């Protein structure tokens, strides 16, 4: 994947900290870099964000405002010993595609998120997806290998930054009491 477009973008997150001593919101702002790349095969662009889960090293995660909630595949090994991620036995599943194509299954985990410039003040919910099945209307489908990030374009999950639609797990920004955030994307080519 050739980085024709580079980190030209910043997501500005406006944090409204709730401080009892203040009459109004205490506004603190941080910027989280996103990486934009152009896919050589299709010519389309995609945005990724780098996230460390708990004490794990940072991994590329797709940045998607068209969905809500943080979904991470088994390749991220959130359940590894010493990861700093707490996984529950609460099941979670969601189906991608319209109509549905593949249904992912897993459990809900919790971890603080380490971005390059910002760490969430507490753990946020994560849908940790460890298996997949074909949707009923799509028998015989190709099941992606959840242990291989190449199966999902080199990313280890999807950071759903949208604020519409139902959320099996909450948008991680909203879960961190961040209710307003701005996204700047710039396409800059070296050609």
């Amino acid at each position: 994947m050739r980085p024709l477009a580079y980190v030209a973008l910043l997501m500005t997150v406006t944090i409204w900290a709730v401080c009892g001593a203040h009459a109004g919101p205490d506004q603190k702002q941080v910027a989280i870099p996103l990486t934009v790349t152009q896919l050589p095969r299709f010519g389309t662009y995609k945005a990724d964000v780098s996230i460390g889960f708990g004490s794990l090293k940072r991994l590329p995660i797709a940045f998607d405002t068209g969905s809500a909630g943080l979904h991470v595949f088994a390749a991220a090994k959130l359940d590894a010993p010493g990861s700093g991620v707490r996984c529950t036995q609460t099941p979670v599943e969601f189906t991608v595609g319209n109509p549905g194509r593949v249904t992912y299954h897993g459990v809900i985990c919790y971890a603080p998120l380490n971005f390059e410039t910002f760490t969430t003040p507490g753990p946020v919910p994560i849908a940790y997806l460890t298996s997949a099945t074909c949707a009923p209307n799509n028998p015989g489908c190709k099941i992606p290998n959840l242990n291989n990030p190449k199966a999902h374009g080199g990313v280890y999950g999807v950071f759903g930054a949208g604020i519409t639609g139902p959320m099996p797990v909450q948008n991680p920004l909203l879960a961190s009491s961040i209710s307003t955030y701005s996204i700047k994307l710039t396409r800059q080519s070296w050609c």
Partner: protein
Amino acid sequence: MLGEGEQSGGAQFPLLPGTRAGAKWQNGQTCLFVNGKVTETCLTISFDTGNGVPWIHDANAAAIPQENGLVTPGTRLGFGPPGAARAATEVVAGTAFANRIKVMPTNGAALTNTGIEAFFGHVVTYDNSNGRISVARTSW
């Protein structure tokens, strides 16, 4: 850069109250623009960085120039809030995979997806408290 919230002068797309469990908001409406002129094709809009190519699902998109199910190459397709005189952001239809904008009739709810292209050169602000997405041009 740091500390920017919603940009002044940005176009505001109000979201609608959510109707499904767990959804505070649902996508709002847009009216499509063709080469800078507003049309009467108004439908639900999804601002979606996770989608590489814009598309339109609408059974009534006759106002959009089309050829073989695609927006006519060279057309500037704009997205603006209902009632706006100008588009908040635009994409240009082409002939390559990356910029072919499909128009698909649907019996379901009409919906357009901006794709990531509509974000370039803009600041897109998500305001969960007030239920709106605003779009402002940026100089970089």
